[in-house]
């Protein structure tokens, strides 16, 4: 039972990391390789905000906002001219972005490891089902659930969400209906980058804050979104749960096989349903 709870916390963290990636793909058709780098930048900004304001909570607001602003700039300057071109150019641009963002972080914060502590009240652990479980993990579960709910509500139930979906399904049609497609795209990218900032901040107290943190996380994100079906929030939730639980129970029985097991699950899904489990139709994207 405690394994289930820990597994849930791993899943929520994975979801927070992958949500921005899948959102950007779903709405813009761009695979953002720089998502991991944005997540790293988010963690460093959270560290900086924590150091400046002396508390974790401002970091959870400041870092995503800064990332959203950066996302806005990135979309305007690099991606907007590339939408009409083939995929490799978008991949290339986001690859270039990785290098630029890493350089910025290196110049500003140097090579030293940084750390972020959980806010007071969320440190320490509680005994649940015979195991000690960190309070911060319970917070991650709750926070992740809240973000999922907000995303669903925002995309499925609000007018803004309707506009987003319309602009992603058929940009030309949306434009003729008077929707500013460019603005929508900018907002989506900013939202995706902001989610990377949330991911970086939330992961801060659990994982090392260092330059290579984005490099290792991006593959996890890909796995999660590919399993669930690219561009699909529901799929990302499912993918995160599947991988999170595989990891948690894998650690219980055979830690050294976890990574292989993850990829086997992934490939099995891809072979049975190449578009992912939750994709409604095959996207030729």
């Amino acid at each position, binding site marked *: 039972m*405690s*394994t289930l709870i*820990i597994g849930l*916390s*791993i899943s929520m963290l994975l979801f927070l990391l992958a949500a921005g990636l899948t959102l950007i793909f779903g709405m813009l058709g761009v695979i953002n390789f720089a998502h991991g780098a944005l997540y790293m930048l988010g963690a460093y900004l959270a560290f900086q905000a924590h150091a400046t304001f002396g508390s974790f909570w401002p970091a959870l607001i400041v870092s995503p906002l800064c990332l959203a602003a950066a996302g806005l700039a990135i979309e305007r300057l690099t991606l907007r001219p590339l939408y009409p071109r083939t995929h490799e150019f978008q991949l290339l641009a986001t690859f270039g972005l990785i290098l630029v963002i890493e350089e910025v972080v*290196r110049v500003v914060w140097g*090579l*030293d*490891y*940084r*750390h*972020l*502590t*959980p806010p007071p009240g969320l*440190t*320490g*652990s509680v005994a649940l089902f*015979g*195991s*000690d*479980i*960190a*309070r*911060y*993990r319970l917070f991650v579960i709750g926070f992740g659930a809240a973000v999922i709910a907000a995303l669903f509500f925002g995309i499925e139930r609000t007018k803004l969400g309707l506009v987003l979906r319309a602009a992603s399904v058929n940009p030309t049609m949306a434009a003729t209906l008077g929707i500013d497609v460019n603005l929508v795209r900018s907002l989506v990218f900013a939202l995706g980058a902001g989610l990377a900032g949330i991911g970086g901040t939330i992961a801060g*107290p*659990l*994982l*090392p*804050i*260092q*330059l*290579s*943190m984005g490099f*290792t*996380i991006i593959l*996890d994100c890909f796995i999660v979104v590919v399993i669930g079906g690219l561009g699909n929030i529901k799929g990302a939730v499912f993918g995160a749960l599947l991988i999170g639980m595989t*990891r*948690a129970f894998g*650690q*219980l029985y055979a*830690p*050294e096989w*976890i*990574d292989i097991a993850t990829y086997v699950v992934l490939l099995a899904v891809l072979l049975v349903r190449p578009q992912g489990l939750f994709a409604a139709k095959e996207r030729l994207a």
Partner: protein
Amino acid sequence: MRMRVSGIAAATVATLMACVGPAMAQDSFKIGGVLPLSGAFGIVGENMRRGAVIALEERDNKVLGKPIQVIWEDSETSTQVAVQKTTRLLSQGVHTIFGEVSSGSTLAMMKLTEQRKVPHIVTLSADDRITGADKTRYAFRTSNSVAMENAMIGEFARRQKIAKVYGIVADYQVGRDMWTALKADLATKNIAIAGEDFTPIGTKDYSILLDKASKSGADGLMLLVVGGDVVTSLKQGADVGIKDKMKVFGTMLMDETLGQAVGPGSIGINSTLRYHFTERSPRNQKFVAAYRAKYNEYPSQYAGEAYDGLSWWLDTVETTGGWDKEKWVDAFANSTRFDSVEGVKKMRRCDNQASQIGLFGTAVAGTGELPPVTMKITETFGAETLFKPCS
């Protein structure tokens, strides 16, 4: 038009190539430093470079009456790049190769330095093969070996009267080898093994494993993980108070640099130390003063070991009075450093491994000018308990 295509292509390629291999003056002592200055081990490499720089400045950047020229190359924490850069340095005719951090890179570089007959100074990589199965005439290690670290861990567990050990081990060859050797050692000391887990390098969640360990009835937790995983496992362990339930120890598990990454959760973690700035030898006091004056911080263990090895090597080169690399190598193989930063270090000519004392420390909260997490030396082991005689 056609002419221009080929003309531009030719000109670009030719110019670029001409720029890459600059001719260099022969009247200097050239050191090729191959270190990870970016990537996961970037911070380690940067610290080693700082230590090495002090060793050079201490002698006014001169040896054998000629200026010392150091060419630093960034291996980007990749063996492939390390090999590439080493090859280039060797082709530039360096007199000494210094590096690397990862044992894999060091071993690969040793093949090159042996082939080119260029002395190679290793001050961090600990793999036993470096001065064991794959040892070469030209590579010397002035720092700890894995066998030595293992002996310290076993001895630490015995002195701390630990009864049962749980092992969380990074799933790679060195990790597994180390754990196997350690288990054999612990068995001779009547210390039981409560359980073991092998976990992939880069594991992002250790909480299940830590939970297993804390329920296993063990009173000692051996964390044999590397790189960022040290930080991940200790951060997540701190949340559930693992160090209050059992004694947490390991090799290179904690120092001031890692303490900065883990935060307050570091306090109470035990680890082997390659070097510590509180060592009281005269040379160390002088080194720490020079280091603090230049960088405004205490030297890390990586910086200290780099300084110690390189200054010893350059002093030995000086004593030969000539430019014969073979003579340098012979002299170094037979040398003893009576005043190293940590007392006497003796180069064993049988395997090019420096025998030396070993240190074990516990992380405490730093006071005053000290870093927020500072290591306190709790055990010092004599060289005779850590090294088996040469065979």
